[in-house]
Every structure is written in structure tokens, then in C-alpha cells.
């Protein structure tokens, strides 16, 4: 095999000479019918896509904050990959939201043009991480919950939502594996790393109950289009118990009232200030 570089040997044959931008990519929505299905209220579908998109967007932003401060270069790339996966999900879901609700808002309008009270993400996604152990606890909870959700959404009667979910399941499977691997390492590492891991679990525990609250919106849209969050609880508990049993840790007793979507901590405002700062300073700018 006569290849001039290692990359020639492993990348696909393509007219695109810019191998650094990748080859052989597939559009997750290729061939998918994009109209809103008959009998599905567009406003409800839009609101549902919006909250799923907000979860991904805000979680992605918190992960991006680890860039340049991750403990190892390799972990930094891993976290960036996970953040980009979620950003990709957010873009598709926000685009779907703006289309389905008939407002014609673009993904940028929705990401950069809304205030705190208009964001529908769960609080779990918006809280900052005290340390790497805290991040791992939050990422494990988030990816386990979202994987269970997207797995069921693959059967949604909205073909776009089903296609986004099908792609997301593969991504979330890796995210969950990444977080679980690190939980095992930290919990079984030194007494200090175990202590920090346990502290991370304690910090995230109060934010778990609200992940499984059924809203009126989800009750209206399920079972055809949406998934009732309450249905995810058994799988979530079983997966998490499987990980924690291996290291002899248990969930700390959760305290605190579950909040409905749209109720936020005081940490979302500063996050949005940063996320939206460029768009606010240069409205409508492109490059």
C-alpha cells in the first residue's frame, strides 16, 4: 500500500482534499420528511424540541468551560468532543423547534435571543462544577437520563425527532461510558479522589428528582411523539446502581424540592451572559 502519509491510508477516498475537516460524513436528517406530522400540534412539538435542545445547549456550554482547565490534555479533548456532540443535538433540536412552532426562529435566534426565563433546560444542566469529580457525577447523571430518553424517542411519530434521537443514542452511549469509567477510577483511586467523587454525587443528588417530573406538555404529547420522564426512572436507577455498587458507594439522600422546567438557579444568568456575549455585542454578525 503506497501512501504518502498515515492519514491517506485511513481516510476515505474523496474529492475533498481537506482531510482535516473529515471525510465520509453523513447528514443525520438525510431523507427524513421534515413536515410536522398530521395530528401533532406544532406549538407543542416546538416547545418539546425547545426543552430538549436547551438541555443539550446549556450542558454543552458547561462542558466547554472545562477547556483549558481540564486535568490532562487528553481529557480536554474528550470533554470537547462530548460538548460538541451535545451542541450538534442542540442545533438540530432548536432548528426543529423554530420550524415546528411556526415562529420561523432560527437556532441562533433561540440560542442567543432569549432571556433566562425563556430557557426550558433542567437545572442539572446549568449548575457549575466544583471540581472534576463534580463534573463526572453530573455528566453520569445527565447522560444516563438523556440516553434513556433518546432511546425511547427513536420511536417518536415525529420523524425528525426520531432521527435526532437515533443519532444521539450512539453519542450518549459513549458519554455515559466515559463518565462511568471515570467514576470507577476516582472512587477506587485514592482516599482523596473517593472523597471528591462522593462529594460530587452529593452535590448533584438534589437535582435528580425533577428529571422525572411529567409536565402537562409531555403528558399531552406522549406516547406518540414524546416520552413521559417518569417512565425513565427505573432504567436510570438500575444503571446508576450498577455503577455505584461496583465501588461501594450509594446515593446520598436527596433533599430539596424538584423544580419545574423554566425554574432556574441564579447560575443560569451569568452562563447566558457569556454564551450570548458575542451575539449581543454584534447582533446579526456573520463570518
Amino acid at each position: 500500500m503506497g501512501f504518502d502519509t498515515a492519514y491517506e491510508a485511513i481516510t476515505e477516498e474523496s474529492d475533498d482534499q481537506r482531510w482535516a475537516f473529515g471525510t465520509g460524513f453523513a447528514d443525520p436528517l438525510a431523507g427524513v420528511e421534515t413536515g410536522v406530522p398530521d395530528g401533532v400540534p406544532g406549538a407543542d412539538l416546538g416547545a418539546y424540541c425547545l426543552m430538549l435542545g436547551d438541555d443539550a445547549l446549556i450542558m454543552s456550554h458547561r462542558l466547554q468551560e472545562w477547556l483549558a482547565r481540564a486535568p490532562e490534555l487528553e481529557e480536554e479533548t474528550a470533554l470537547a468532543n462530548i460538548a460538541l456532540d451535545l451542541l450538534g443535538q442542540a442545533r438540530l433540536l432548536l432548528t426543529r423547534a423554530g420550524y415546528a412552532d411556526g415562529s420561523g426562529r432560527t437556532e441562533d435566534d433561540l440560542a442567543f435571543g432569549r432571556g433566562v426565563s425563556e430557557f426550558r433546560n433542567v437545572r442539572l444542566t446549568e449548575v457549575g462544577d466544583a471540581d472534576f469529580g463534580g463534573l463526572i457525577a453530573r455528566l453520569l447523571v445527565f447522560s444516563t437520563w438523556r440516553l434513556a430518553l433518546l432511546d425511547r424517542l427513536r420511536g417518536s411519530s415525529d420523524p425528525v425527532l426520531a432521527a435526532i434521537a437515533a443519532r444521539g443514542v450512539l453519542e450518549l452511549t459513549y458519554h455515559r461510558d466515559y463518565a462511568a469509567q471515570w467514576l470507577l477510577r476516582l472512587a477506587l483511586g485514592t482516599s482523596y479522589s473517593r472523597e471528591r467523587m462522593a462529594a460530587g454525587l452529593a452535590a448533584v443528588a438534589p437535582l435528580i428528582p425533577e428529571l422525572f417530573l411529567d409536565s402537562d406538555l409531555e403528558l399531552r404529547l406522549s406516547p406518540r411523539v414524546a416520552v413521559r420522564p417518569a417512565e425513565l426512572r427505573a432504567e436510570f436507577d438500575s444503571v446508576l446502581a450498577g455503577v455505584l455498587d461496583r465501588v461501594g458507594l450509594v446515593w446520598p439522600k436527596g433533599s430539596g424540592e424538584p423544580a419545574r422546567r423554566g425554574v432556574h438557579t441564579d447560575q443560569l444568568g451569568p452562563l447566558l451572559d457569556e454564551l450570548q456575549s458575542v451575539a449581543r455585542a454584534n447582533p446579526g454578525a456573520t463570518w
Partner: protein
Amino acid sequence: MSDPGWPLFEVFLRGKRGLNHVHVGSLHAADAQMALRHARDLYTRRNEGVSIWVVASADITASSPDEKDPFFAPSGDKVYRHPTFYDIPDSVPHI
């Protein structure tokens, strides 16, 4: 730095149209399982590979530059070792 950090691993990828694994670089990891995941995150994020091998760099025994001449120079003038004196049938690929 007194802390040596994680050990080094070498990464080999096989691409979709590649028949063999190709060395693409190295990375740090605590153990082989972590190295495999790091390799996935560092070297396949642009859709390059379908299979990954990792091996601890310390486990590779390499020829020394000092031995270059006695190792490799003697084969330089032995053209009869190359299978160039007969035609390869079209039905025999990958030679």
C-alpha cells in the same frame, strides 16, 4: 517536572478502506483501557478509523539508529529479492 505523569501509548488505526493498522501518533493514559478511549477521542474524531490498537510505548523494541547500516544497507543492492521478474495477475490484489 518531577511528576512523570501518565505513561505513553502508541496508537494504530485502521481506516474504512485500509487493510492494516497504521501508526498515527501517541498519547498519555493511565492504562490501556483509558488509552483506547483517549485514542478514540484524539484520533478518530474526524471519522478516520474503524479499529484502534494501542500499545504501551515502553513495550516497543525498536532498532537503533547506530545499527542502521548493518541492519539495512546489505539489502540495498539485492534486486533479485524483489518479485519484479514476473507479472502479477489482476485477480491478486493487495501486493
